[in-house]
């Protein structure tokens, strides 16, 4: 029987944690990009686009992320497309993050007073110019704290990718627990690593919130 030191356990967990970070970043960047496109589509005032995106948001907010992962992993395969746990996890998390982010940001844009739209329209700015130079810069200040807060949800959400066989922190923890017979120690370390990832982000969100509130009334 092989003996495992605490360092062995931690080292392997930290190596796997890289994938948690990478998956989080991909989900966040991809979700942010898709979410921004959806937001702009929604703001154009096209009723069909608005209804469709509203339904999309409800769909992803109303079903567990776990189901979304399962459905994507097995659903894509159904269409004869070769899919890996890595692909499925990325796609599922990007869609999930885009639905939440577009809704968060829609609220932030709605918080920009209507007078800002009217004043910029009166100055003959086009829709794109209004968004880029007047509305989005103001919405951004409101959006930073909830957006950073949502990043924490995404980091923790990546743990679910373990169920479709993607080896990230949680999956690695399970595998190491199985060979070391020390589940409490291993999962304790896993939890600590998640905490070490998420806590600084939460702290940062809090400090951003205070900073932005000082500047604005």
């Amino acid at each position, binding site marked *: 029987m092989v003996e495992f030191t605490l360092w062995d356990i931690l080292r392997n967990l930290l190596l796997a944690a890289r994938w948690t970070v990478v998956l989080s970043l991909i989900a966040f960047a991809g979700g942010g990009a898709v979410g921004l496109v959806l937001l702009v589509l929604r703001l154009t005032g096209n009723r069909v686009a608005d209804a469709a995106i509203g339904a999309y948001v409800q769909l992803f907010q109303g079903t567990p992320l776990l189901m979304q992962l399962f459905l994507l992993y097995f659903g894509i395969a159904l269409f004869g497309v070769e899919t890996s746990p890595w692909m499925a996890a990325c796609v599922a998390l990007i869609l999930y993050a885009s639905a939440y982010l577009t809704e968060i940001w829609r609220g932030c844009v709605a918080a920009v*007073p209507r*007078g*800002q739209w*009217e*004043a*910029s*329209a*009166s*100055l*003959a*700015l*086009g*829709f794109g*110019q209004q968004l880029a*130079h*007047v509305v989005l*810069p*103001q919405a951004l*200040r409101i959006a930073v704290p909830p957006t950073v807060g949502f990043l924490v949800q995404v980091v923790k959400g990546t743990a679910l990718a373990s169920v479709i066989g993607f080896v990230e922190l949680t999956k690695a923890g399970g595998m190491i627990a199985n060979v070391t017979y020390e589940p409490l120690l291993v999962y304790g370390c896993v939890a600590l690593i998640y905490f070490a990832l998420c806590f600084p982000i939460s702290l940062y969100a809090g400090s951003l919130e205070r900073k932005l509130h000082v500047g*604005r*009334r």
Partner: protein
Amino acid sequence: MSAGADPSATNPVLVPPHTEVGAPIVRITALRKSFGDNEVLKGIDLDVMRGEVVAVIGKSGSGKSTLLRCINGLEAFQEGSLTVDGKPLLHESAQAMRELRQRVGMIFQSFNLFPHLSVGRNVMLAPRLVKKRRPDENEARARQLLDRVGLAEKFDAMPDQLSGGQQQRVAIARALAMDPAVLLCDEITSALDPELVGEVLRVVESLAEDGMTLLMVTHEMGFARKVADRVIFMHQGRVHESGPPDSIFGAPRTPELKQFLSSLHE
């Protein structure tokens, strides 16, 4: 046209419109506007001559703000036609709307300065984006206009560092930077503390003296009487009575106007 008859031609701060002096610069014909089932404007005919100062008065809900907001397309109307300085208002065409809005400036009750931009950038934003004005020219023009409203030294200030009266004067400079043919003023002193009203009205008055065409919804009856060439009393979505300020305020003909004027003195 002679320089003497046209004050705006001699004043480099204001750019003369296309419309000639004495010709209508805003033409509103049979304009009707509803919000759902509620008809707010029930057939408005109104011509505003170039250089004319028109004050629109009336109770709240009489449609006066809606009329103003129709003129630059912030509200869509269902029937009738509207042209400003020769540009027709076509809601379906974004291009036509942008061209028309370059002819009309609007000042709002709540200032609506862009809070994330400095005073100078507030004034320079639209000319840069819409008119593609060169940066040096744009800045010179912005400084000139801020000087015109008495705020030359606030170029780099942020809007929330200014008083309400100062913010409103920046809003006027911002509108002027687009070289509008007409300025619409929608209750521009209603959100101000009483001691700040004067500084804004003085700027508006000086614009009127320089030949700017002004259409203003106002509750400042003293100001309307002093500055306006024509006063329009709106009642229930119609132009109920109109005429020179002396006859509107001095000899109102309709009972509705009499009642409105007497209600102001209570």
